[in-house]
């Protein structure tokens, strides 16, 4: 098999045959060569354990991620393959079967009339690209391997591109979520000032919010945790929260993600917010966001809890130890029967499994909000929570729903 592969090497424009010995090809500027060379000398023996050198690499650059402990996302290989148009579907499926993580095909604009098209495929770093492509080619019955080039994928590029798509979001009158790297909407009494915010498309509704006076701006850098404020479930929860927090409450954000709900609660006037999550990345993002919004550890606490639904993996235990320097973090698990408002915005299965746990943290008579569920999953949630909550009401936005109710007093049941 390897003999037949030899004469296909002449098809490559260039190859990274042994990427361990060559420095990686980076097409985004910020990284200094020194840091990449030092990374490359490190022999990755086990690709699943996080590489400590990755965090150093990110701290040297000038991108938005400087202050965040970025996750050690493994490098990936990006392969660009020529292919004939009528074979794209079969070839993409075959590549996925044989080890590619993903394939993407750009749409032709119509000006190119050639028969060939490029497939961009992403492989995990440890994958043998050559074998995979030759197996895929065999399985669809192509006679010869098409030409392709392999590059080491650039972590920055895709992280930056997704950040670019994050614009200030208006949740409701007087409440905006603003990315850290954009200027918040300038709230001034004069209407001529809308010129500073031309990048916001709803300038007419924005003008009306100017008349409200001070709008609450929540500055956010979601990092890789969930909660930018744009998603319908986040919006539903924020609206619920706005109605509930009158001032001085204790709030529990179960599954805090970027910390957006916990921060919003403080801004609305809660006395204390506690955010719990099973993902260390979420805790990091949330503490960063709290700092950016000038909320101190006395008002906002974050707890990394073990994932009780799965056996802990080696990685999680190691990361849990590393996070001890985080001043927002407390070791204490959130207490039972303490909180005036509890909101859990996660997913259907965890919500069903952890129902008792979620409700146990609320005081009797306190409000519990549940979201992250599709409208079609509503009946399951209502069934499960009907024994725990009373006065259940549902709000919906697009395909998503939010359920809220008050915890039954033990004396009543």
């Amino acid at each position, binding site marked *: 098999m390897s003999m037949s592969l030899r004469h296909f090497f002449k098809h490559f424009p260039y190859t990274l045959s042994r990427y361990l010995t060559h420095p990686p090809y980076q097409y985004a500027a910020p990284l200094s060569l020194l840091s990449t060379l030092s990374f490359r000398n490190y022999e990755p023996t086990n690709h699943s354990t996080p590489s400590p050198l990755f965090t150093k690499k990110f701290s040297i650059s000038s991108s938005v991620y400087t202050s965040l402990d970025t996750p050690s*996302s493994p490098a990936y290989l990006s392969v660009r393959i020529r292919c004939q148009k009528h074979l794209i579907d079969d070839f993409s499926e075959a590549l996925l079967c044989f080890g590619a993580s993903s394939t993407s095909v750009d749409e032709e604009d119509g000006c190119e009339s050639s028969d060939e098209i490029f497939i961009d495929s992403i492989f995990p770093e440890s994958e043998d690209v050559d074998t995979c492509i030759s197996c895929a080619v065999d399985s669809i019955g192509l006679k010869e391997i098409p030409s392709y080039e392999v590059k080491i994928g650039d972590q920055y590029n895709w992280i930056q591109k997704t950040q670019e798509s994050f614009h200030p979001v208006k949740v409701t009158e007087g409440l905006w979520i603003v990315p850290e790297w954009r200027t918040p909407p300038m709230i001034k009494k004069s209407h001529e000032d809308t010129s500073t915010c031309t990048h916001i498309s709803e300038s007419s509704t924005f003008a009306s919010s100017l008349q409200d006076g001070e709008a609450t701006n929540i500055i956010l850098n979601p990092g890789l945790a969930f909660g*930018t404020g744009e998603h319908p479930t986040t919006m539903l929860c924020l609206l619920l929260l706005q109605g509930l927090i009158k001032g001085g409450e204790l709030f529990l954000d179960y599954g805090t993600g970027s910390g957006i709900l916990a921060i919003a609660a403080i801004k609305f006037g809660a006395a204390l917010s506690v955010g719990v999550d099973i993902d260390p990345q979420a805790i990091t993002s949330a503490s960063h966001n709290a700092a950016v919004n000038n909320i101190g550890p006395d008002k906002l606490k974050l707890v990394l809890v073990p994932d009780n639904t799965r056996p802990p993996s080696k990685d999680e235990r190691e990361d849990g130890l590393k996070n001890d320097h985080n001043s927002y973090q407390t070791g204490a698990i959130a207490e039972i029967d303490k909180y005036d408002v509890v909101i859990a915005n996660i997913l*259907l299965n965890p919500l069903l499994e952890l129902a008792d746990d979620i409700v146990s943290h609320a005081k009797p008579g306190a409000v519990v909000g549940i979201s992250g569920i599709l409208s079609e999953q509503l009946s399951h949630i209502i069934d499960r929570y009907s024994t725990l909550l009373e006065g259940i009401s549902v709000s919906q936005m697009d395909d998503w729903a939010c359920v809220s109710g008050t915890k039954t007093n033990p004396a009543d049941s």
Partner: protein
Amino acid sequence: MATLKEILTRRPVAATIRLTVPAGAARPAPPVGPALGQYRLNLMAFCKDFNARTQKYKPDTPMAVTITAFKDNTFEFTVKSPSVTWYLKKVAGIESGSGRPGHVVASTLSLKHIYEIAKVKQSDPYCQYMPLESICKSIIGTANSMGIKVVKELD
């Protein structure tokens, strides 16, 4: 068959992306991250949406997702059930198909197994109008190409 209204309001497509993601475990990290990040799609929205829609599958089943990214940075996606080969391997309890299909038998399955797999596959968007018998036949064909023998009944 697209309606006239759909054709008129059809957004220009930027790219078609195919991915394999474990059910309920989409994260913004690779493989999802780079693949979608390239086209400036909202990663978090996709992850949340995908995780919510795959809640009914067993966690970590590899789902095939096809995402259509439009030029205005919006996207649509369809989730397909895992590939037939994955199901066959799981049911037969083997890691990979036989190295020499037709000569070396990797495992044996009964028609009942095939029927169960066909029922799951029928809920897939593109299989819905196919009679169950045709789906079974195509599964048997795949099984043969992997070196899995199909018998009427297992002892």
